[in-house]
């Protein structure tokens, strides 16, 4: 913006350039303005060196000052090696399976017998059923809270026999096979079949310290 009361030479004079064509009145006004500006500048408080040091400290170490929450919600680029990721997934699944099995084995409802304070001793029990033509076979029983989705059997396609091996603590267990999620059938090789109270039969095995002999 240009002030109309000053000539261009007066503006040059205010900027500190040597000029001769301004009037004495203009020169006097300009000098008063310069003096007023200088007086105002002298009244300003100049920051000391400690302010510089504080600002530089913040600039030089931004990570230390950043909060965890800001880091947590911000977007990041993560480099993953597929081999290491696969190994981590396998380890996590194995760990979670172990915790899950320990949970069920530790339940008294599974009728397991803990003797001599050795409650973690288990024996491997193999379950098998011939069921050709079905898409899915699972094992549900008192050893897994009757969860019909937790223990899946693997099929030998040549024979139609589905099998799974489960670690069990010594004790007595009731169980059934579940075919295609909706057909519950007993195990013909179990030690016995008992009334489940609901009008059907449950299979029974007694797992000894050395395992199970089936008929």
């Amino acid at each position: 913006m240009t002030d109309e009361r000053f000539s261009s030479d007066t503006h040059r004079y205010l900027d500190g350039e040597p000029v001769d064509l301004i009037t004495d009145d203009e020169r006097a006004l300009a000098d008063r303005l310069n003096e007023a500006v200088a007086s105002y500048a002298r009244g300003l408080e100049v920051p000391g060196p400690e302010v510089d040091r504080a600002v530089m400290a913040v600039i030089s170490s931004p990570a230390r000052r950043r909060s965890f929450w800001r880091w947590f919600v911000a977007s990041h680029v993560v480099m993953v090696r597929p081999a290491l990721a696969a190994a981590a997934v396998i380890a996590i699944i194995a760990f979670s399976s172990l915790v899950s099995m320990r949970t069920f084995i530790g339940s008294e409802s599974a009728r397991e017998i803990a003797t001599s304070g050795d409650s973690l001793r288990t024996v491997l029990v193999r379950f098998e059923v011939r069921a050709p033509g079905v898409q899915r076979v699972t094992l549900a029983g008192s050893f897994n809270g009757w969860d019909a989705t937790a223990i899946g059997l693997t099929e030998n396609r040549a024979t139609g026999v589905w099998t799974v091996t489960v670690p069990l603590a010594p004790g007595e267990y009731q169980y059934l096979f579940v075919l295609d999620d909706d057909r519950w059938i007993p195990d013909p090789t179990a030690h016995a079949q008992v009334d489940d109270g609901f009008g059907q039969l449950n299979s029974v095995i007694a797992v000894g310290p050395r395992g199970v002999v089936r008929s």
Partner: protein
Amino acid sequence: MMRLVLLLIAIAALTPSAGYAQGVDVGEQLLARGASAAFADAVADLVATARGEGLPTDPIADKAFEGWAKRAFVAPERVLTVLAELATRLRAGRDATVTAGLDPPPGSVVAAAAEALGRGLTADQVRAVIEAAPAPEVAAVGLLTASALAAQGLETAAAVKAVEDAYRSGRPPEEVLELPSAVAGLLAQGLVPADVARHILEGGQILIPVTPARGPITDLPRPPKRPRRR
């Protein structure tokens, strides 16, 4: 650092709760499995009543889970009826256990006694098994074994005597759990449960095998081999 945090988050997301089967309320577990609130509340009430009477509650919870798992062909009302019957049997099992001298009765023994009563053993037979056990904490083993033998078709008197004999043989108490496997082996050889029971009641033994793969050992005469069909 970032990778470690991501790994910990993944583990936390994938690891099932260790308290899922034990510490969590049975009603909450049923709700988590998709049961209706009315059914879960009714089961929780039964469990609370049993707990108030000092009965073991795990058998009731286990039966409730079984009933819910079989919901495709078992109505919730039927499940609740069975749970009430089980609670009654647990009371009878507790009474038999106390009468046998275990007071306060261990929950595992009460549950096993109830199971044995449900398989046809009398209260006197339950007491006999408990009294034959070398220690209170292993009485449940004998009761469950006798229950399994009865379920295999042996007379309950023979089942009880087999367990008593095994206890008195001096072998580790938990090895009585091998008896059903031994009997299964004998039945697989062609014997019938009545033969095995009579042998036991006449003083014979069902010896626990050293290794299951070698089959049961007994002084029972083996049945004659059937001629092969051609």
